[in-house]
């Protein structure tokens, strides 16, 4: 089945952030180009979107989970093999930004714990969502950037409602590819993923 594989590499991206910041909204805007009213996310779900970056076919497995930390402890598998992490906050909600600040360590620890490899392998982005409501902004670009810089991660702003800033997916894909080749300089992408497991065959049939 591997010969019918429709991509060269698969990356798992996870979304974290406080409740109601718009994690699911960003995902569904990107995957389905929809902005819809939906209930709060309880169950982690994931979506797949294939993109081509620099002539490399990449399958993005985008995981979304609820912001309610009560259910996290069952979601350990959520972080496993994650190559990219979006930490999302609502620019109009100060507490959601502070949450990202205080949660950064926890998140990296979780990713490391369930990833089984060094933290440098994973790309982190800080995302300020809801720029359509910029009038009520409570978090300035400056402070968000300052936090990002001090943790050596990137900061981007989006509006899921107005479909702006969705470049973040392409951007993180590039960074993940870069990191991947850094970490695995000897093996080509295709070589490495030809031994890929059932995931590949499954995704190829449904994507």
């Amino acid at each position, binding site marked *: 089945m591997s010969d019918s594989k429709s991509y060269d590499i698969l990356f798992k991206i996870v979304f974290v952030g406080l*409740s*109601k910041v718009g994690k699911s909204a960003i995902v569904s805007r990107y995957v389905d180009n929809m902005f819809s*009213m*939906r*209930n*709060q996310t*309880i*169950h*982690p*779900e*994931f979506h797949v979107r294939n993109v081509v970056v620099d002539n490399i076919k990449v399958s993005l*497995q985008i995981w979304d989970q*609820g912001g*309610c930390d*009560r*259910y996290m*402890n*069952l*979601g350990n*598998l959520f972080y496993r093999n994650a190559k990219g992490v979006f930490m999302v906050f609502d620019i109009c909600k100060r507490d959601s930004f502070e949450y990202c600040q205080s949660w950064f360590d926890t998140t990296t620890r979780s990713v490391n714990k369930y990833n089984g490899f060094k933290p440098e392998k994973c790309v982190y982005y800080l995302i300020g969502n809801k720029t359509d409501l910029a009038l009520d902004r409570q978090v300035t670009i400056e402070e968000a950037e300052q936090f990002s810089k001090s943790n050596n991660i990137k900061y981007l702003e989006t509006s899921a409602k107005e479909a702006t800033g969705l470049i973040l997916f392409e951007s993180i894909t590039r960074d993940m590819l870069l990191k991947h080749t850094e970490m695995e300089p000897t093996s080509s992408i295709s070589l490495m993923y030809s031994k890929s*497991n*059932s*995931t590949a*065959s*499954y995704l190829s*049939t449904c994507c």
Partner: protein
Amino acid sequence: MNVTNLNRVLFSKQNVFIYPPEIEKGLNGTISISSIDKGSIYLMWTPLPSNEQEDAIQSATSPSPSPSTSLNSSRNIEILDNWNVKVHVKELKSIKKYTPTIGTPYIILNTKKNITVPPFFFEQGGVRELLKSLGSIIQLKKSSLDSNIFNVVDFSDPLQRSISSINLSDELHFGDTEEHDEDDSHGQNQQTESNSLRKAQIIVPQNNNNNSGGSNGNSPKISYTPPRSISPPISIGIGGNSNLLPPTMSPSSVGGSGFSMSPTSKLLSSSMGSDSGNDSDISSFNMLKSSSNAVLSTSPNSNLPNKRTLKKEKSSNIFDNFAKISQLAKSAQKNIFEETGKKIDNHFRNLLNKDTKPNQSTSSILGANLANSGTGQSGNSLSNSISPQKNTGGNSSSNYNSIFEQLNDSMNSLGSSMDYFTPFNISSSNFSVELTLNRKECNPLSPSEWYSYFDEEGRICLANQQILLKKIFYGGVDDSIRKEVWPYLLHYYPFDSTYSSRDVLKFEKSQEYFTIKRQWQSISCEQESRFSKYTSRKQLIRKDVIRTDRLHPMYQGDDDQNPNLQLLNDILLTYSFYNFDIGYVQGMSDLLSPILSVMENEVDSFWCLKGMMDRLESNFHKDQNGMHTQLSTLAKLLKFIDVELFNHIDSHDGSNMYFFFQSILICFKREFHFQDVKTLWEILWSNYLTKQLPIFMCLAILLQERNIILEADMSFDQILKLINQKAGKMDLDEILIDSESLVKYFIVKQINVPDQSLLSLKESVSTFY
């Protein structure tokens, strides 16, 4: 008529309220003890006319107007004039006082005729004074069983009573005959052939109580009963020439009337609605509506109409007539159930009765049911069926492996490896064939059937409960009566509660709710700024409310405009104060949304949510123990039923069964369509077969995909995606049928469960189905 002039007020207390459900804020009024006419003493309650609120103090100190006066003066006021209470002190049987430490004291009157009088709430006290005053007129004796009950010492032997009633009837000509003349139906009363019957009239003070019209603000609404359903006018000849008409039991058959009653009482009230002359006396007993309220009665006459006041009586005649009516009602009830429209329900009940017989195997029960159901489809073959081949002959599934074969085999080889058979093919098992027929044939619980489960006083006896729950398990509930049924399923109303005790309960629960609600409402901004836990809870609820089922018509529209969102918010916030340990956890808004859409009332929704949370509370505990327990039970059950699939999932780190986290957490709220969720929840609440049905449902869902999972060698991620994608696309009946066959299979096989691992599940299943 100057009746008022003859009145003498012995006691009067203002600001005494009654709380009919139709009137949100209750009715303010004055309770008084008055001597009317020739020294007959009445306990009366008169509402303040709605336009005279400001005169409250004045009217309370002045002599209380007699009911007839108030009737005349306020005839145009819609409801108020109907709520008058007038009870002759000789009719009092007992008085129960409730003096809660917090809240308003109230009394409940119990009359000899078991006529319901609404509880009186003494907003400004006065219970003791009333009792004292009453005690000086009649002899009250504290009950030895309950010091809050005051029994009236019965001075009236039958002879005395009839004497007193003769006196009463003499007095009556003052006020009431005149009123009768104003009313067409009472004009008929004058033509009564039997004097004794006429004397036996029970006259209502309000007196505009003719049933035949069914609409003219009739019947003193003596008590507030659960909304819905009223009987249509049906005539029954009292003289024995019954001309029964097929009653239409539709709850909406009488516009605007919001009462419910059992079929028996319905019939009684219907019988009262006759236009024919020979029963016109009886028609003055306004039995409509009020009959459902008969409280605490044990006599064969417990179906007596509720009258506030019995002015005339000649007991033996009355009783004779009521006996006749009861008989007619009984026969009428039979007729109702023989109606074609009711046949299915009736059949169902017959069937249910049958299968409670001991020593009948599942299949033969089900088979017998089919045979009896008169549908004619393969009833006979199924009735004999322990042999599965007959019924599944058409099933071409290649890996056909019937549970029955397994079952028969396992009877001979308990504990052998054959017990773990794979693949598990539910659809080709005989359990499911029979169950399909059963579930598919069962209609939702209809209003008429629902009302038939009540006894005269509004209880559902234990035997009926079991039938009822089974019925709900197989058919769900008709949308029109969900509002009435859910409070029982969620243990808001006890099944053995009576009409009147539910009235009290509803009042108390309403008070309790608003007490808790006031707790958070009274938190000032100042306080809130130092109460971060409250603030964060409030914000979390707000966040979730504005994204709960917003595509449902009830919750559409602007965030701040839709009042239902505010209700969701208030109920959840109140619940977080009611159950402070749980507070609010995501998922609870999902539980409330269907409940509110059904109950359409803040207080009722709250208490139903409470009932739901009682079932699910452990799901929301911080340690997640409840969830872990259920998911690991699911894993063990899977291992027991289909070890191959279990091994596969286990090898992919999936034995935590996390795929079903959300399904278990909020009872498949997001996995099925809104309408289906309501049906499903009723079925779960029925607790029929097992309280753990969700676990079996998860298993059924998983097993539907077993071949796909195994053939594609799916990883955890893929299984999760596969299961997630099934949301909203599953057929509820299909899943339920599969789940049920799994339960039954488990019941049969549980003896072979190797260890204690499924003990809780074993205990949860009922072997008596």
